[in-house]
């Protein structure tokens, strides 16, 4: 049964080769070849996942000589279903969407190669195979994003992606070299077994091997998942075909979360890496969301939305909720994929009708008309604070009675509470004909969402990490001292509550209309809308390096 995993990367490669070799004969039928092999791959991946669900196990299928090992385990099978499923939808969508484009055959060949590289990456059982697949994803993406050969802009943005991915590739290469140098094997299961049996036994450059390789793998994940400072490429790569944007935002960009899960046994033995991962994810989530809110261009806004989501996903890894990150990347993949793939028909419909209901929600959100008669604020404040936290507590308590002992669960609970409270707080000013019905709908949706999210993520935890001791070890590694944790939580709460009070105060006193406040607000808005001038700084750095290279060449007379 496990041998089937060899077919997963082989089938799309075969489709790409067939389409390349018989391009003239096949004509537009290249799409059929691609879709059919995609369907077969999806069926195979589903069979493999079914087998894992029946009884989870890890089997390495090798081509020989310790290289080219494919791993059939819960994580690789889950990723295979996700990749084959989403790529199948993208392929079917592309059949008509790309019909008018030049290079129809080239597009499907590149798409198949990308799927092959992703599947290889997902199931790589040795570092060499992982390196090959990891590099190839970046290279193929470069050509997919620069698919329009006449567009210099698309090519330039594809280059930004490539160079950012290269930074991650090199970090991964360094991690692989250190691991091989330390353990004398490329095999991932063997390396993980060695680490588990003697954690912290080896050092490199004054650090434990786990600490340094964990940091390098984290950098590789940051580059791939557009974390802050390595994110600039993501919002600008919308020049590629829409199916590519969909595949990128749904699948490729999630590789960061996957790779952290794949190297979980290493992260479980680190000291500070998970805290750094949490911090980077948090900053990315906040900055991505802030930048999303200030974009006028819907595509860039979607790009920053993905950045924010990726930040949240990485943050989940940072608190030790590794399997939750996998669930998050799947859930995000589905809703973002729907957004991208339905964008065309939504725009077409919007030309006839904007689709915005001219009711309470419209007058509140678009026309910014708030209710003249508001609900009593004390009642609203109580509902705002008490209801979300009660629901979240019950949901967590259902799956794990001791969840409050895990800092990671508390942090995620905290975020859920803030989000829920924010939603309820907003309704305070909203005009509604039937207020109890509106608040009831919100609460039911919130409850279903939270309980569903908690139960499913718990199921993912049991499926991906059946070893309870290992699960405990990951949470333990992600834990910080109680005093610091409590202080940080109190500080964050105070900042958020202060933000609410400031918002309320400024609305009440119409601060926006006052010149001093307005100037401050405009300066902040300019800073955010220019994306913190990061792109300008990067462009300046690139220009300076090119000038330096030219000067050296002149100095050495181009010899």
């Amino acid at each position, binding site marked *: 049964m496990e041998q089937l995993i060899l077919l997963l990367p082989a089938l799309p490669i075969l489709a790409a080769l067939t389409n390349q070799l018989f391009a003239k004969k096949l004509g537009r039928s290249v799409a059929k070849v691609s879709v059919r092999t995609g369907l077969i791959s999806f069926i195979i991946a589903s069979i493999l996942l079914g087998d894992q669900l029946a009884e989870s196990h890890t089997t390495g299928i090798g081509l020989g000589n310790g290289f080219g090992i494919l791993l059939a385990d819960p994580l690789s099978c889950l990723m295979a279903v996700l990749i084959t499923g989403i790529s199948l939808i993208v392929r079917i969508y592309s059949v008509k969407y790309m019909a008018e484009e030049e290079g129809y055959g080239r597009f499907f060949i590149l798409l198949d190669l990308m799927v092959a590289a992703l599947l290889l990456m997902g199931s790589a059982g040795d570092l*060499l195979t992982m390196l090959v697949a990891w590099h190839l994803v970046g290279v193929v993406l470069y050509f997919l994003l620069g698919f329009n050969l006449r567009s210099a802009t698309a*090519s330039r943005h594809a*280059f930004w992606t490539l160079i950012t991915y290269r930074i991650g590739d090199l970090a991964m290469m360094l991690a692989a070299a250190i691991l091989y140098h330390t353990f004398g094997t490329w095999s991932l299961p063997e390396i993980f077994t060695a680490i588990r049996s003697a954690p912290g036994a080896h050092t490199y450059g004054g650090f434990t091997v786990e600490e340094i390789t964990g940091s390098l793998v984290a950098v590789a994940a940051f580059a791939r998942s557009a974390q802050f400072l390595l994110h600039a490429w993501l919002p600008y790569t919308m020049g590629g075909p829409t199916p590519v944007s969909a595949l990128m935002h749904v699948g490729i960009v999630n590789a960061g979360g996957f790779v952290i899960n794949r190297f979980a046994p290493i992260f479980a033995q680190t000291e500070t890496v998970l805290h750094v991962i949490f911090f980077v994810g948090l900053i990315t989530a906040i900055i991505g969301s802030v930048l999303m809110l200030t974009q006028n261009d819907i595509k860039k806004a979607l790009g920053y939305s993905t950045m924010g989501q990726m930040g949240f996903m990485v943050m989940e890894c940072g608190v030790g909720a590794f399997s939750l990150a996998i669930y998050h990347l799947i859930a995000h993949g589905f809703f973002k994929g729907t957004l991208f793939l339905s964008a065309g028909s939504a725009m077409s419909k919007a030309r006839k009708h904007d689709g915005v209901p001219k009711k309470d929600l419209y007058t509140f959100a678009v026309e910014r008309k708030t209710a003249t008669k508001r609900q009593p604020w004390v009642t609203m404040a109580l509902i705002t604070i008490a209801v979300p936290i009660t629901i979240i507590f019950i949901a967590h308590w259902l799956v794990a009675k001791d969840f409050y002992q895990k800092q990671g669960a508390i942090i995620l609970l905290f975020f859920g509470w803030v989000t829920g409270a924010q939603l309820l707080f907003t309704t305070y000013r909203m005009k509604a004909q039937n207020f109890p019905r509106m608040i009831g709908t919100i609460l039911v949706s919130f409850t279903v969402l939270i309980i569903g999210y908690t139960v499913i993520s718990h199921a993912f935890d049991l499926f991906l990490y059946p070893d309870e001791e290992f699960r405990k070890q990951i949470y333990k590694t992600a834990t910080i001292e109680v005093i610091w944790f409590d202080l940080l939580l109190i500080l964050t709460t105070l900042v958020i509550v202060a933000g609410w009070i400031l918002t309320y105060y400024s609305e009440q006193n119409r601060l926006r209309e006052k010149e001093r406040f307005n100037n401050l607000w405009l300066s902040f808005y300019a800073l955010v809308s220019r994306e913190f001038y990061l792109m300008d700084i990067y462009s300046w750095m690139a220009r300076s390096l090119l000038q330096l290279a030219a000067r050296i060449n002149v100095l050495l007379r181009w010899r």
Partner: protein
Amino acid sequence: MFYSDGVNLMDSKILAAALFLPLFPLSILFNVLFEGLRKPLPRIVVLLAWPQIGAWLLQEANSAPPDWAVHLALSTSLLYGFRALVLRELTHWISFLAISSWSLLWLIVGFFDNTEALHLLALGVSLPLAILTLLGGQLEKKFGASYAGLYNGLGHAMPRFSGVFVFTILAILATPVFPGFTTMTAAFLEVTKASLAGSIMLCLIWLTWGWAGSRLIQGFIIGKEHHEEIEDISSGLTWLYALILTGLAAFGIFTLGQLS
């Protein structure tokens, strides 16, 4: 320290190898020679033979390269990779990338048990450079010069040529699964053993290659075509190039297997 000391720094074979697997400033001599050759054929002969002589000399030296040579090899590779960023003339680009790639062979002299491996990897690294020289010769024939940015948009005007061109560049940039990738991986394994600083230099070298390569692709392949009816390379020739590149990739996979 990369390798054991106690090696005669003035070992004549090592010094001669520094000319054939060029180390700065001896690399200038190679550049002068390479650019002095006007026809593609002699350039190809030099590209294929030059590193083989260097590899033979290194192995004949019967001792590991001294530290100064290894440090200089890393610096030379980075210097030429970095300088290649702004190159637009194809012959210059080939020459700089040849120096940058061949310098890395100094790092992996002792890596493989068999002596042929170094020669084969030198060939694997040089062959794509030789193919690019041929392609450059064809461009010179058609346009009078092979210069990025002068006549961009070849992707549409000459699709077969562009396909071969792009794959050749990828092979030069040590993309998996070409032999350059094996060379680079072996170099990482050797350097990482010794120091993190050396590894970071290797990272920078690879980064500059990728940057230089994509600038070249952008300069030749991308953009609106400005030409009327340019004849593409023949289907037969495309197949021949494809066969060579496939062979290179297969050889790359084989050598990658040797790393385990």
